[in-house]
């Protein structure tokens, strides 16, 4: 196996097809990255939301007990 290009410049240009190849690569990587980042965001947001709900309930329960 040999490296097909003589320089980074050549690799970016891809003998005139550079725009097409690198656009395809970039968009693909962006979408794929989103598919990995988005669920992590959701995961963290869900945990935060649940924790907040719990604290609110605990506070409410605590207040209820004090009233009694």
């Amino acid at each position, binding site marked *: *196996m040999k490296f*097909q290009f003589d320089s980074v410049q050549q690799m970016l240009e*891809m003998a005139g097809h550079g725009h097409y190849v690198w656009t395809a*690569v970039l968009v693909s990587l962006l979408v794929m990255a989103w598919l990995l980042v*988005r669920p992590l965001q959701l995961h963290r947001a869900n945990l935060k939301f649940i924790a907040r709900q719990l604290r609110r309930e605990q506070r409410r329960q605590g207040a209820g007990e004090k009233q009694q």
Partner: protein
Amino acid sequence: MASNRHWTWFYRLGSPRWFYETTGRWLPWLWTLTLVLLTAGLVWGLGYAPQDAKQGNSFRIIYLHVPVSFLALAGYYLMAIAGAIGLIWKMKLSYMVMKSAAPIGAALTFLALFTGAVWGKPTWGTYWVWDARITSMLILLFLYLGVLALQYAFHSQESGNKASAILALVGTVNIPIIYKSVDWWYTLHQPATIKFTSAPSMHIDMFQPLLLMIVALYSFYALALILFTRAEILQRERKATWVCELALQAGKDSAGEAG
């Protein structure tokens, strides 16, 4: 009873908590595997594979286009099977997997179309051609979007799941019919024979990185699916004790980090 013991692995599989905790252990390995495979595949395909005699370097897009198309189609079947398991065994986790598979599949189908279009321009001179494969991919995208739309159209989570599962199954039966119909339609109307080099007639040096990329995409899909499903589990099981403990623990951890 002996029969119960045989099925426990199946029912354990259906426990969201088991899934969450087990995949939690696998995640670091899966991340590593996915990133390594993707990097290796892309570097090999983009840098080391020989260019095509007719298409030149634009053919390198195949290293993204074909794997992504594979997974887009395979992902639909996975979604439908998850839906079927949910309908038959009423397994919540299966519905969660189905729900997670939908956006991933739709995004990959979009990518298949996009990379195909970008590849088409230097190859055939136009971004869009109504050939059998591209048209079928477009229809697949709409099948995915339909499942997604139906999922969120219902107030009740359970109804949305069941409706999406039925739609996914109906779509599954139709996919081969749609592909064959569109294929037949295209050969009927085809103006000139434009066929791009299909995998089997490729030189081995070009084929190997393609195989690697396909494996890499499978690993990627598994990773994305697990991540989405885990987030979904938290949301759906938020009343469960183990989730509450997890959330409070995570809250303490992040507070500890901030402080």
